Structure formats: C-alpha cells, structure tokens
C-alpha cells in the first residue's frame, strides 16, 4: 500500500507544481500585455454616417499566445438601450507580437437623436462602453471593460429665431422675415434645408417657407427664412415649427414661440 500512496503523492505534487506554474505565468502574461489606446477620431462616411475610430496598439509580452482577442464598443442611450455597437476580432496574437489596429464604430445621427435630441442643441459627451475579451493560455478567458466619454459638439448649438419682421406685400399678403442663427460645434458641416411653418394663436397654419443652410464645422451661421402670410390670419402671438433636412440627420418640429 505504501508504494501506491507514494505514487499518488508524486503524481499530485507534479500536477500541483504544473498548475501553479501555469497560473503564475498566465497571470504574468495578463500583466505584461500592453494595450495603448490612442485618441479617438471622428469622421463622416460616404453613406452619411458618423465613423468613430479607436486606434489600439497591442504588445503581447506574455508567455502565451492570445486567442480570440475581441475589442468591442457600445454606444448606450439615456435609457440604457444600445444605439450602436461594433467589434473587432483578432484570432491570434503570438508571443512577442506587436499589433496596431483601428477599431471602428459607425453611428447614425438619427439613431442618436432618437435617444436624446439634446445631442443636436447642446454640447455633451458620448458615453461609450468598451470591452476587451481574450483567451490566455488557451484556457483562461479574461474580459476587461470600462467606460469612456468622447466630447460631442452640437451641430445646432444655440439655435435661435429672431423676432419676425413684417413687410407688407399688398393689402392681403404680408412677407414675414425670420432670422435664424446657430453655432455649428460639430466636426461635420451642416448642409441642407430648413423648413419653417408659422402658426397663429388659433393654432392655424398661416404660412411656410424654406431656406438653404450651409454651416461649416465649428462656425457660426446666420440666415433668414421668408414666409408669405395672409394679413388677416396674423395674430400677436403664435408659434414657429422648424424642421431640418440634412444628409446626416433630419429632425422635425422644434417649436419656438413668438410674440
């Protein structure tokens, strides 16, 4: 009985040593993995979407190959719902290998606005959840996750309609001139059409007009919209409804009171 017991002793001791050495080297492999995140960049794509690029430098200084390296990002809405997500998979990163990758996340501004229209009018932050998953030493799955914020400049910051000016065209018609101004804080140009509808205090549509908008990135825009309105329908107070149609986004009915 002594010999079998000693054999079990030796076998388990050898297994323990192997297991501890493997775990220690795997832990050091995680520690020696270098991940350098560059500054994220934003651009527009040909299909009028926004492309957020995350440069990532990876250096595997560990003792094992890294398998199934998966970098994923997720843009969450105010209610926690996923607006958009993207992932980049690298099947294998060898020992001592250094890689530079560019992870892309595309987003539709309309989808972002569905979550919160504030993105159009106020400078804010895009909260992005990042997650990196990998398998070290073939058997140990590791996942790291965190949140980053990317500054977001509002394309229609400080959107204002000035007090309407009334110019008589004839006895029945009047031209209403409404000045519009905003600051484009976004990284893209705002080019498109703006539609304005005028309602009187009785909630009747009394006129509508449209104008072209072309505001370069990080610039101030001043313009005006002309409307022809029947004199009899004009009241002291009422409201304007403003619609924007651009290739990147369209949004409807920003209500601004007048009078």
């Amino acid at each position, binding site marked *: *009985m002594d010999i079998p017991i000693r054999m*079990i002793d030796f*076998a*388990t001791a050898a297994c323990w040593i192997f*297991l501890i050495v493997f775990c220690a080297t795997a832990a050091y492999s995680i520690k020696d993995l270098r991940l350098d995140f560059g500054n994220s960049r934003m651009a527009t794509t040909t299909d009028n979407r926004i492309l957020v690029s995350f440069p990532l430098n990876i250096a595997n200084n560990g003792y094992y190959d890294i398998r199934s390296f998966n970098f994923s990002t997720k843009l969450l809405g105010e209610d926690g719902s996923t607006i958009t997500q993207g992932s980049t998979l690298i099947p294998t990163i060898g020992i001592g290998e250094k890689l530079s990758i560019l992870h892309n996340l595309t987003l539709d501004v309309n989808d972002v606005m569905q979550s919160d229209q504030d993105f159009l009018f106020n400078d804010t932050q895009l909260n992005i959840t990042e997650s990196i998953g990998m398998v070290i030493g073939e058997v140990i799955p*590791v996942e790291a*996750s965190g*949140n980053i914020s990317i500054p977001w400049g509002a394309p229609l910051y400080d959107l204002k309609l000035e007090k309407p000016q009334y110019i008589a065209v004839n006895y029945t018609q009047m031209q209403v001139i409404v000045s519009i101004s905003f600051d484009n804080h976004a990284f893209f140009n705002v080019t498109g059409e703006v539609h304005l509808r005028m309602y009187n205090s009785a909630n009747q549509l009394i006129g509508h007009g449209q104008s072209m908008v072309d505001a370069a990135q990080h610039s101030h825009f001043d313009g005006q919209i002309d409307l022809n309105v029947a004199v009899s329908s004009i009241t002291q107070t009422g409201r304007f409804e403003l619609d924007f149609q651009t290739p990147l986004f369209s949004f409807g009915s920003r209500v601004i009171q007048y009078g």
Partner: protein
Amino acid sequence: MVEDEKSSAIRPRKLIVRVLRATIKGLLFFALYYVCWLFLAPFAKMIPDLQQTVQIFVRVYICLVVVGELTAGTIYQHFFGVANDLFVISYLILSLNSGMFSMTYQNVALEVDLRLFLMIATMLSFIGLSKTILQAINFVSKKAENAPT
C-alpha cells in the same frame, strides 16, 4: 523492565525529532511563501485583498501541517491531513468566488474566468484527500497486523 527503560528513553527523542521536523517543515513552507510572494507582490497593488487572503491561507495551512507533523505516527496525523485537504478545497472555492474572479482597477472592470483552474485544483485536492484516507486505512491495518494476539 529493561525494555520499559529503553522505550521511555526513546519517547523524548522521538518527540524532539517530531518537533524538529515540524519546525523545519513550517519554516520551509514560510520560506516558500516568501519566495512566492516576491512574484505575487506586483499583483497586490491591483488586487486589494490579495495579501490578506494569501496570508490567512498560508497561516492556517502551515498550522495544520505543523500539527500534523507533531502528531506523526498516530491516527490524528491523518485527521489533520484530511482537515488540511478540506481546508484547501473550501478556501479555494470561497476565495476564488466559485471561479469567476472579478476586480476593478482604475475604472476598468476585469473579469477572469478561473473555473477550469478551480476544477483542476479541486480535483487535485480531492485526490489528496483520498490519498490521506488511504494512508489512514493503511495505518490502521498495519497497527492491527502488528498488534499482539
């Protein structure tokens, strides 16, 4: 009468040998812990409770090994051996949170799936436990064989 005198002279010597063996074993385990800690120290900054967890484990483990060594040659040695194996199994399961190890370091949540490691470690501990039980059976059967009829 002469045999009785001989056995009473042997007993203190045996006890001294046991104490010496237990001391050497305890010191060896402590030395091993210090050497291992040199490698684990870089992780202590990232995992706040690591040092405390390892220290408690090492202290209890060494205590059980020393007590087991002091009771060598008796059935109690095997009791402490079983206690040691059960302690290793339960401490591994508890400290590794059933294999899903998670921590937060500088706003980054890290999750390591150690279930396979835990499974292998638990299996090895169970093999150790069965070996200790076999040793106890062997010890009892040998004692029964040597008993005067």
